[in-house]
């Protein structure tokens, strides 16, 4: 069996965001693998270690820079990579079309992804890929067992925990609490340089969403800060909660 993991390269979560010419400036920003996708890569590698699958392929769509995200996944232990070159400016629909086309050629048994990207945060791409490929999907998993051509997933759901089963092949997206991603070892980093990565151009698709503008969020007004004895702090905070916020006490 083969697992394919979709990895998106995102800004470091510490990155300071600025606008340049009305767009999000990317100069000098440290780029990382989307934290959720790191978890998905780790999940894929663990499936290989458990001998559930025999190959872990990573797939990323983006500019040449996304090669770094692929190399990091390879250094963690994935076997090979695919980079789909796609212009920035593709929306979720166009991204999903491009990724699905590449996945179709690979014909994996399990497709892993993050449930959301930490930057654009649309939570759409994995589910769209499943629809394009006509496959079942399951989102936000915190565990998965593979047996008898089925994936049994534990998922974080609204107000509880869900266990659901889907037939393979299927698209499965990760929650961060699934596992603790490993750091690439020195040996892994060396090996990654020799692992094969193929590149191809994205299948063309029209956007369905148009960006009107980017803006910075309104700056928060500085509030009150009290540095005093605990009793005084508590009394003033209580007063603010009761009279400004108008909180109700049970």
């Amino acid at each position, binding site marked *: 069996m083969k697992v394919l993991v979709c990895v998106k390269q995102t800004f470091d*979560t*510490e990155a*300071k965001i600025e*606008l340049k010419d009305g767009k*999000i400036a990317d100069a000098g920003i440290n780029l990382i693998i989307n934290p959720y996708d790191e978890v998905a890569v780790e999940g894929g590698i663990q499936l290989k270690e458990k001998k559930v699958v025999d190959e872990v392929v990573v797939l990323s769509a983006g500019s040449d820079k996304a090669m770094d995200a692929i190399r990091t996944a390879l250094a963690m232990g994935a076997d090979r990579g695919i980079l789909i070159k796609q212009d920035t400016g593709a*929306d979720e*629909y166009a991204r*999903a079309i491009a990724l699905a086309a590449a996945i179709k050629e690979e014909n994996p048994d399990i497709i892993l992804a993050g449930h959301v990207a*930490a*930057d654009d*945060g*649309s*939570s*759409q791409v994995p*589910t*769209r890929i499943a*629809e*394009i490929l006509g496959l*079942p*999907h*399951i989102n*936000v998993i915190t565990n998965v067992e593979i047996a008898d051509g089925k994936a*049994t997933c534990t*998922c*974080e*759901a*609204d*107000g*509880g925990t*869900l*266990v*659901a*089963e889907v037939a393979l092949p299927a698209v499965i997206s990760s*929650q*961060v609490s699934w596992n603790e991603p490993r750091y690439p070892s020195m040996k892994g980093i060396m090996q990654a340089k020799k692992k094969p990565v193929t590149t191809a151009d994205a299948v063309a698709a029209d956007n*369905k*969403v148009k*960006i009107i503008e*980017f*803006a910075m*969020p309104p700056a*928060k007004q*500085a*509030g*009150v*800060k*009290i*540095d005093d004895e*605990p009793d005084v*702090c*508590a009394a*003033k*905070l*209580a007063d*603010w909660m*009761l009279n400004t916020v108008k*909180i*109700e*006490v*049970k």
Partner: protein
Amino acid sequence: MAGTWVIVEQRDGNIRKVTYEMLSEAKKIGDEVSAVVFGKSVEGMASEFAKYGADKVYAVEGDVFAEYNTGAYVAQLAAMIAEYSPNAVLFAHTFNGRDFASRLAQKLEAGLATDAIAVELSAGRGVFTRAIYAGKAIAKVEVTTNPVLATIRAGVMEVAESAGAGAVVKPAIAATAGDVYQNIKSFVPTVSARPDLTEAETVVSGGRGCKGPDGIKIVETLADLLGAAVGGSRASIDSGWLGHELQVGQTGKVVCPNLYIAAGISGAIQHLAGMSSSKFIAAINTDPEAPIFNVSDFGVVADLFKVIPTLCTELKK
């Protein structure tokens, strides 16, 4: 064209507040507003939606809809959209809502704006405001396909009561058991007497400054006094003091309560991403330089172990 549709979020008849937020927002547009509710037997809920302005209630009933499953729900909603041609369909940005909306959007080869914090709808045109880069920037996007599809962040829009006719419509059932591809084995609700983190009016969160389960207890006592939800920073989640589902932040939940109280939380950028759009923010931290104070309306530089018990006494007065 048949106005704006709001997809109801409910489980076993418990309706999520975001449903009323969406109905109230949809009402502002001026077009006909319909609530679309899926379940085994849901007609009895119709009057609930009429109170918030629903002119129509599409009661989508059947065994196949007893629990949310993407396959049957998407097949059914796609058939209804083809029959009734709504201008816009709004979903909640819950786990179910985003799953439902994404698969439907792709089936219709349509655009979708997720996690919207503001909506401008007119004559079939839909422009949405989204917080991107964990709230560090804002994007305004237009969905250029029809119907306009979006998921809405909970807690952002005001709930306003307004009388609607609430006329019940029973649409033709297009989905069958054959459309189901996720076999749901079990659903275990989180047992908690506290409100849901993403729906709560007040959230009290504890961080590493709580130093352990005893500190978290103090935070929980305050939360219970306020009828609030409890949340945590990644530090307190990773330490095992609180469950993963209670993490607030970029890789946790985004919350938008009326009041957010951060106790022993430094205010790392990834934490701020999950709470900085709360209406009021209070912080309790021993370090006067802690970045959490930059986003706080009311900050106290003090030891949470001393301040919170006294605060509880003061509030009870």
